[in-house]
């Protein structure tokens, strides 16, 4: 499906046999509420979690030419960092799916430590589709090691 675009503006030229705006608004609000409530009621709000083989497989779906040298699953199992030699790979859970990124110096804006609840690394990317990714790594030494690795890309 695509945009109907400018054609819509010409609607006002014709007689209307359309839904009344109030009825349309009520249908939209009621319909959205019903659909969302059903998905929540059926438990489809729980996010996915990763395991090492799943994270590896997901990354290789998008970057099949890479060789994974090392993989570190975040403590919450909602993200993984992968050493792929000349870059660092990231697999991050989004809802019940995951996205991947292959980070080099070009894509990575900064790496900072998130020392709040569930300490970890916050990766800020130049990618406007995923500007911020977080990986929970509670162990300070390991966190520093990955931070160093990310800063070397």
């Amino acid at each position, binding site marked *: 499906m695509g*945009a109907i*675009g400018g054609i819509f503006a*010409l609607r006002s030229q014709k007689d209307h046999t359309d839904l009344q705006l109030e009825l349309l608004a009520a249908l939209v609000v009621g319909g959205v509420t019903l659909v969302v409530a*059903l*998905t929540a009621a059926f438990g489809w709000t729980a996010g996915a979690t990763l395991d090492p083989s799943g994270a590896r497989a997901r990354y290789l779906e998008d970057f099949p030419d890479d060789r994974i040298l090392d993989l570190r699953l975040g403590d919450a199992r909602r993200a993984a960092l992968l050493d792929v030699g000349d870059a660092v790979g990231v697999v991050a859970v989004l809802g019940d799916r995951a996205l991947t*990124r292959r980070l080099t110096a070009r894509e990575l804006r900064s790496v900072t430590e998130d020392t709040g609840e569930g300490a970890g690394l916050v990766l800020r990317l130049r990618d*406007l*589709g995923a500007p911020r990714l977080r990986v929970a790594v509670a162990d300070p030494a390991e966190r520093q090691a990955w931070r160093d690795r990310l800063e070397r890309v």
Partner: protein
Amino acid sequence: MSAPALPDVVQLAVPGFIGFMVLEILIGRFTGRARYETRDTVASLMMGVGNLAAGFLPALGTGALLIYASEHALLDVGWSWPVFVVAFVLNDLRYYCYHRIAHRMRWWWAGHVNHHSSQHYNLSTALRQEWSGHLTFAAALWAPLVWLGLPVSMLVFVNGLNLVYQFWIHTEVIDRLPAPIEAVFNTPSHHRVHHATNPRYLDANYAGTLIIWDRMLGTFVPEDADEPCRYGLTSNLGTFNPLRIAFHEWAAMLRDVTRPGLTPRQRLGYVFGPPGWSHDGSRKTTADLKAASARRAAAHLE
């Protein structure tokens, strides 16, 4: 037949959209054949609501172009039923052209990318529509049909039918339909391929209602049961925020175009080149991804 008052079929279909989504969710709950995720669904529905609202904005340049074409129409084709059928078929071909352009040129992809931004494929995905259609002048593709003599309101009507038709094909619940239907019409199977990111499925099946355009113009790819579709984008979004979904590609394009040190030709490349094009070859287009996949397959065979 005099000019009839034609309904807005998309608005009239709203209760059906809701009813069929509820049905698909129930089927998913009890059979596992449809998969929803709450925040993904909210994002899709918000994109649909935003698209509906954006439809009430003035059309500016394209509206004026269509009025001009209407005033200089070559033929007075009238309002008979055969004309409606001709309008439907020609509009479907117009949709195919628009859709193919929207996947091959970043200016139009910047809006259309929203529709492909979910990693799910269900009826709510059908409603994940762009908000920026008015900015892209895509409606200019109606001008030849209006100039030919087809009334604008007739085209709006048949286009509404086309869009409503495309709602039900966004599902994994329906596998394949009888061969004669699969041969002529766009079906859930054909459209799953269109939404897939597997390299062999990229840039395929642009049809609206009739799949014959893809078959005739070399863009048809059948669904292969041995290669399940992976849905979404080749670089998936990390957000459910409707504003970011709607405008991330526009913002990225603006950033690329205003980058210092580029030639005018390179700046144009970032606007009208294929999605993924870059002046230094640092990004991958779908053609690059397909070529890399073909190389891997050939190497695997050796």
